[in-house]
């Protein structure tokens, strides 16, 4: 981050963007974590000392709405501000503040870095951020995934925002965030107004800066009359969009910047470009996809035999806009897009090449593309062959709970509880616990959004003879669930059951801290670093009490029997208000980060260490695998049956078991077969321990048969 002019940055795209922010003299940064942009905020938070040095304020916001609202600072003051989150979901949450920010417009440059979580590897609904740029009149940057270009676009983004008074969104696709490349650095810029050089006096009162009638009507006019034209001028003058000439000047392709590399590779596959991007067909690369510059697009299209618009996702906003502006100018160039390319889904190289070959077949008959045809057909043929070879499709491998995850036992208990109290409607939520929807649990009827589970059963439970269960993580609880769910359920006196996973972090996004995270001092002071420490922070409990929750139980997740009983009680009790079960157990990832170095240091010092591993007696295991259907832990797997008489594989606990205890708890709670054992390996035992053990050992061996 401290790299200056003359240095070369090597690393991931999202870090390059972060560096770009500092080079642009950003004054404040905020956001809410979520793949693929979590890193941006994490790095800034970790680099707090350096940020203070520069006078940059960094805020880990409680959700995207608060991040967007933070941008209000740039309405009055010449502050460059940047926020980040995962889109589309984050943008949905932020929408209200964004509208109210865009209406008065900004003085200081505003850049919203969104991870466009679309296509392969995405974890959310597939929608386009583009719609928000259109409806609120925000510029939308979609830079070519070249680190240098991306960093330039950050700087341009701020200036574009300042010249047009429009907030700018920069959308980065998943692979763009994680692309490894390099760029030539510039010095970081300490902002003129900053935490080190604060503003003396607040701005004077100016009604025009409020998103409040009557000025909102004026704002709307301003968008069309001044801001968009200003933006278009800047985009054209600074050449933010790139024109790439080609030998077939009578054809053209308009492409979103983010898709440029895929397009070039597709053209290569068709023999229409080389490895350096030298293309036969001229390209207009839109590093800014909103607003378009009508003159630029018109000039590109006019006089050509045909133009293809390569645009990802639906609806095809860009193609529609181009069609309109060509029609208005009565330019008759044939326009293609969704008629040749699939309207939905990621535009990978193969898909794109398919569309391009249709385009080429129509307008470049002289260009032989047999090899390309063979390549595309070959792919289809091989896929069919493999499918034919395998009698069944290969089993999927979705992500699942970590080894030793404290959330897994709750789903075991829930499975058992439903055997007692009958199946219940389960309103699921966003977070690691959503893995409970995968095998072996396959639980959850709906997911309506982050922290929305309790709210999403409000219409269900009154219509249901049995009680409905809402599952929520502590991340979702603080992000949204407290207000949309708990407050509403209490206010309406709903008969609801809420289970909150209190693991202490927003784990699914990379274990970021939240207000209920155990303090670092607590972790320092803890004598036994292995124990879960989330019980040391009771913010959730006290908040719920304060709101007036009367029925609240806190259960350690590994007490499967107790959790089962508690769930049964919640499902069947005569208490008709909101019932909250707090499932307590610290995130395993965080615990291991603490435990590993601690154990290592103890062993180094030759001190006593107890290591726990569970195991299965292969000759006692009944090969029914009920234990696996109740756990799904990656280290509880199966192997060939060593008994030549038996045919079905036996369960086995492989290396990597962290001895979390679920196997034992389940064996008791569900009365599984008696094949499980818990082994405690004492390293560097004390002398009296050794003595006792040797004496005991002798006797035990005397009793044992071979």
């Amino acid at each position, binding site marked *: 981050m401290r790299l200056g002019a003359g240095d070369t940055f090597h690393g991931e795209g999202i870090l390059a963007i972060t560096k770009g922010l500092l080079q642009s003299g950003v004054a404040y940064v905020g956001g809410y974590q979520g793949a693929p942009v979590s890193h941006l905020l994490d790095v800034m938070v970790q680099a707090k000392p350096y940020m203070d040095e520069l006078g940059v304020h960094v805020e880990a916001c409680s959700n995207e709405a608060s991040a967007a609202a933070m941008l209000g600072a740039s309405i009055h003051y010449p502050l460059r501000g940047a926020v980040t989150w995962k889109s589309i979901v984050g943008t949905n949450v932020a929408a209200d503040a964004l509208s109210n920010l865009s209406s008065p417009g900004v003085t200081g440059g505003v850049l919203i870095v969104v991870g466009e979580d679309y296509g392969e*590897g995405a974890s959310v609904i597939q929608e386009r951020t583009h719609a928000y740029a259109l409806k609120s009149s925000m510029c939308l940057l979609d830079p070519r995934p070249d680190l240098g270009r991306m960093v330039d676009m950050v700087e341009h983004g701020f200036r574009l925002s300042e010249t047009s008074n429009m907030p700018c969104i920069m959308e980065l696709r998943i692979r763009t965030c*994680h*692309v490894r490349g390099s760029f030539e650095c510039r010095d970081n810029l300490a902002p003129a107004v900053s935490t080190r050089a604060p503003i003396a006096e607040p701005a004077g009162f100016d009604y025009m800066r409020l998103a409040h009638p009557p000025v909102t009507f004026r704002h709307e006019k301003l968008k069309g009359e001044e801001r968009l034209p200003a933006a278009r001028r800047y985009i054209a003058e600074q050449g933010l969009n790139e024109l790439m000439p080609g030998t077939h000047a009578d054809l053209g392709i308009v492409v979103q910047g983010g898709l440029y590399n895929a397009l070039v590779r597709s053209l290569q596959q068709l023999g229409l470009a080389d490895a350096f991007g030298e293309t036969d067909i001229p390209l207009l690369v839109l590093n800014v996809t909103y607003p378009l510059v009508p003159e630029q697009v018109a000039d590109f299209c006019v006089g050509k035999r045909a133009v293809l618009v390569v645009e990802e996702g639906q609806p095809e906003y860009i193609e529609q806009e181009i069609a309109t502006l060509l029609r208005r100018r009565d330019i008759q160039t044939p326009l293609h897009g969704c008629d040749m390319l699939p309207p939905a889904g990621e535009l990978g190289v193969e898909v794109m090449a398919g569309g391009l070959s249709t385009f080429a077949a129509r307008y470049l008959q002289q260009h032989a593309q047999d090899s390309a045809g063979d390549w595309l057909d070959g792919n289809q043929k091989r896929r069919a062959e493999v499918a034919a070879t395998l009698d069944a499709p290969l089993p999927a491998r979705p992500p699942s709970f970590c080894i030793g995850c404290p959330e897994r036992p709750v789903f075991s208990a829930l499975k058992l509880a439903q055997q007692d109290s*009958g199946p219940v409607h389960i309103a699921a939520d966003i977070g690691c616990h959503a*893995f409970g929807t995968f095998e072996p649990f396959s639980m959850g009827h709906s997911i309506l959004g982050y922290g929305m589970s309790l709210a999403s059963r409000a219409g269900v439970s009154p219509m249901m003879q049995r009680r409905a269960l809402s599952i929520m993580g502590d991340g979702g609880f603080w992000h949204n669930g407290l207000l949309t769910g708990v407050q509403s359920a209490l206010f309406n006196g709903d008969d609801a059951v809420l289970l909150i996973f209190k693991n202490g972090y927003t784990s699914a996004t990379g274990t970021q801290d939240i207000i209920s995270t155990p303090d670092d001092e607590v972790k320092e002071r803890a004598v036994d670093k292995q124990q879960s420490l989330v019980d040391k922070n009771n913010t959730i409990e006290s908040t719920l009490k304060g709101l007036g929750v009367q029925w609240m139980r806190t259960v350690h997740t590994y007490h499967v029997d107790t959790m089962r009983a508690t769930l049964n009680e919640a499902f069947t009790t005569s208490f008709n208000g909101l019932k909250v079960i707090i499932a307590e157990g610290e995130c395993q990832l965080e615990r291991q980060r603490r435990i590993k170095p601690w154990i290592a240091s103890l062993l180094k010092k030759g001190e006593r260490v107890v290591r726990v591993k569970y195991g299965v007696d292969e000759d006692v295991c009944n090969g029914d695998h009920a234990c696996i259907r109740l756990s799904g832990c990656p280290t509880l797997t199966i192997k060939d049956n060593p008994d030549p008489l038996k045919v079905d594989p036996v369960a086995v606990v492989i290396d990597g078991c962290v001895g979390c205890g679920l196997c034992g708890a389940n064996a008791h709670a569900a009365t599984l077969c008696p094949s499980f054992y818990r*082994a405690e390996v004492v390293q560097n035992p004390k002398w009296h321990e050794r003595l006792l053990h040797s004496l005991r050992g002798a006797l035990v061996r005397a009793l*044992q048969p071979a």
Partner: protein
Amino acid sequence: MNRTQPITLLVCALGGEGGGVLTEWLVDVARHAGFAAQSTSIPGVAQRTGATTYYLEVFPVPLAELGGRRPVFSLSPVPGALDAIVSSELLETARQIGNGMSTPERTLLISSSSRTLTTAERMQLGDGRTDSGRLLDLVKHFSREHHVFDMGAVARDAGTVVSAVMLGAIAGSGLLPFPREAYEHVVGGGKAPEKLGRMAAASLRGFAQAFDIVHSPREQAAMVSRLLATTEQDAPMADQPLPPAIAQLFPPPVHAMLSLGYARVLDYQDAAYAQRYVDRLQHVLAAERAADPAATRGFALTTEMARWLALWMAFDDIVRVAELKSRGSRAQRVHREVRAADGDIVKVYDHFKPGAPEFAALLPAPLAHRITAWDRRRATPWAMPLKVGSHSVVGMASLRLLASLRWLRRRGSRFTEEQVLIERWLAAVLQGTREDWHLGHQIALCGRLIKGYGSTNERGKNNLLHVADHLAAQPGTSAAARAEAIAAAREAALADDAGKALDAALVRHGAPARPVQAQPIRWMKRRPAATP
């Protein structure tokens, strides 16, 4: 126009295997060597042991010779345009082949032979594992060249993670224009060998092993053949040989299984019980001889009965479990499994939860029935959760005491019940065999349904007897048809523990679904809103 293309490499790994580190290494190696390179990944799904991929492109011409021009790299792998795929898990390799990534014309496939079983494969009642042989065929068929070896084993052996092994494999394959030293320099962080940290040293060990395996085809061929050797296994024999007196009663093809079965029943109870096993099996043999005089089927029926009869007769109970858990061999096995060093102390706690039926099993019928009746009257069945420390004197003593109750088992109610059920099944097998060999054989194979303890065991017995009663002797259908129906029902019985598939199969073949087992559900029904 310049037609040189980048070298393309797809890396398949599971979350937490260090695929990110691997790509970082590769990009650094390229950079130090002065080549343009780019990697991308989709780590979002990599989290928590899910399947994920990483993608790398390297331009084969040094940057210095490109005259300032920079290649445009693809961010995602292109199906059918890959020079190499490296994968740490065999199923994931096959998955990418299925996606059309690998071509016989172009792609070098380096895959681990090891399997990390998916939940879907692990959770089945029977054996849900995908056939690795099939997957290996795909690897062979859809690659220009392939190297298959157990990356997990190499990593364990070197005390490192699989990413270092994968890097060694890539380096050893000569895919990229970099010398071995270039890789080792990056992995070692440029430090001199004696200055290396433990981790880095381990990484380099793993790197070197994998490099050699892929670099020298001979070792790797041996690896593959060893792999294939382990897949097929020959007929196993029991430790102690079959008494000749018994052996001469049966044809040689049966001996292997018979010796195992005889040994099992003898070890389970006593000589008399073992003799009973032999007698029962002789009836089967006689029936099979009658049904198949020329022995064209090689006594497959008797052999299978030798297996399933022994397993049922040696049914699991607390006495048996105590016996197995208190053996010295078992203590040693546990020590091996937990990888305890010499100085370490190992404490072993066994999880038991015997219920009323388990104890009643050892008591004479009248008393047993009273206890089980009492247990049924309870809201929740009675059970005693125990954590017995089999490393302690008291724990071991109590296990041995329980194990010594073998004599009581014989007088117990369950023993009698099991014998009755065994006879019923046996009768069905004999009856079926007399009618048609296939029918008898299929009923015999249903022994597979009997396994385990408590509810699992009950479920198995109910299923088997229901099948035997309704499908085996179905009036008006040919023996062949019934044999087929039984085979289908047996497979269905292993599909889900609720038995939905089984009932469906039963009905499909004209038999009634199984009677609904009474299961107490305590559920609260919310009253409809009161009308004003």
